[in-house]
């Protein structure tokens, strides 16, 4: 049993890396997606709506497979880690698009009207009035998305990224101790998710005070 610890710790690090990169890409896609969904230009709105509907309407696993296995057919050759990160990031970005859009829409309309009446431009209104208020409201729901994406990184086990679930699977096969391997990986996931959860709570509290 002792021999497997280093492998699990290393795999946990890969899971952390995957989660951070996926989260950053997801936030970028979410920010772009949400601004497109709220745009005045109808085609931009349609593109963003199609993005959200298609990526939320199909399994993330299939999206990973399309990019990793299907990519080379259209000239995209990526290693498993990169392909997996991109696929999962774009996928969670679709969920984050809706989260960010929801938070922006939840800011009272009167705020926009008042800011515009005071002579602020549309851009100024968004940056100085709407976004600071929306940012506070999106911390908690984005935390739910981040929790889901951490567990979602397990989907890269089938394309052989050496992360926690893949490592557990590998050692279940070689040690015949499925419960121990499950617990080892499970506890590491839960520690990571707990730390991230505490970070989000802290951010949320701070945002409420200011």
């Amino acid at each position: 049993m002792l021999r497997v610890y280093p492998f699990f710790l290393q795999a946990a690090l890969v899971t952390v890396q995957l989660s951070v990169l996926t989260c950053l890409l997801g936030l970028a896609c979410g920010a772009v997606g949400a601004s497109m969904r709220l745009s005045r230009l109808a085609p931009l709105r349609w593109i963003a709506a199609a993005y959200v509907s298609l990526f939320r309407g199909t399994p993330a696993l299939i999206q990973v497979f399309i990019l990793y296995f299907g990519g080379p057919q259209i000239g995209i050759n990526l290693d498993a880690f990169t392909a997996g990160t991109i696929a999962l990031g774009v996928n969670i970005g679709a969920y984050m698009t809706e989260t960010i859009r929801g938070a922006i829409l939840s800011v009272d309309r009167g705020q926009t009207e008042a800011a515009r009446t005071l002579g602020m431009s549309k851009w100024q209104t968004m940056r100085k009035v709407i976004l600071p208020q929306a940012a506070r409201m999106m911390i908690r729901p984005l935390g739910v998305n981040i929790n889901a994406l951490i567990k979602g990184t397990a989907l890269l086990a089938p394309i052989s990224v050496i992360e926690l679930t893949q490592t557990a699977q590998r050692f279940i096969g070689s040690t015949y101790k499925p419960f121990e391997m499950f617990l080892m990986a499970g506890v590491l996931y839960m520690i990571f998710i707990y730390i991230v959860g505490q970070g989000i709570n802290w951010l949320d509290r701070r945002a409420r005070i200011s």
Partner: protein
Amino acid sequence: MGLDFTVVPGYFDMLLIGMVWTIAITIGAGLLSFFGGIIFAVIALYGHWVIRLPFRLFAWLFMGTPLLLQLFLIYFGLIQIGIDLPAFVAGVIGLGLHFAVYNSELIQASILSVDKGQYEGARTLGLSRGQTLRRIVIPQAVQAVVPPMGNNMIALLKDSALVSVIGVAELTLSAQQAISRTYRPFEFYLAAAACYYVINLCLEAVLRRLERRIAAQR
């Protein structure tokens, strides 16, 4: 190698059979997660703490770890202790238990969200504890729980793709079989994605109808 979608129709029957299995798994695991969710919620809310504590631990473990890891545990773990379930059954149990935990959280929250005054009022009028729950609390809780539980069912449909990893012959695995014969992953995974999207749209339509019907009963 470019794209050639003309190979897809030749494997249409294979994808169709996969779709039927995906729907069967979703319904099976959906029912399990529904009734399991109710049982878990009742235990969590009204059970003795000796039963409640292990359930809390179980729920915590299932919500804090990836579904894929749980499927590996159930499929390979049960073989280890001598229970050799077919992959299909292991997949349905894994998916069903996973979502039962999430449904249980929703049900608990919705029961607790019913105003305490309703409960007290019913008891004062002479209804028994069981009657109060059955006639007053549950009908109100159901309304609150249907939309989020519908979202769980949609998530369950999409996550059913994961059982292909333990070898259940559903839509994703059907696509993989077609790919192993044609070497055309892009076309077949895209076709599988389209199939999931269609099932998803149907499920959403059914759920919207259900929500409207429940709202109208009020």
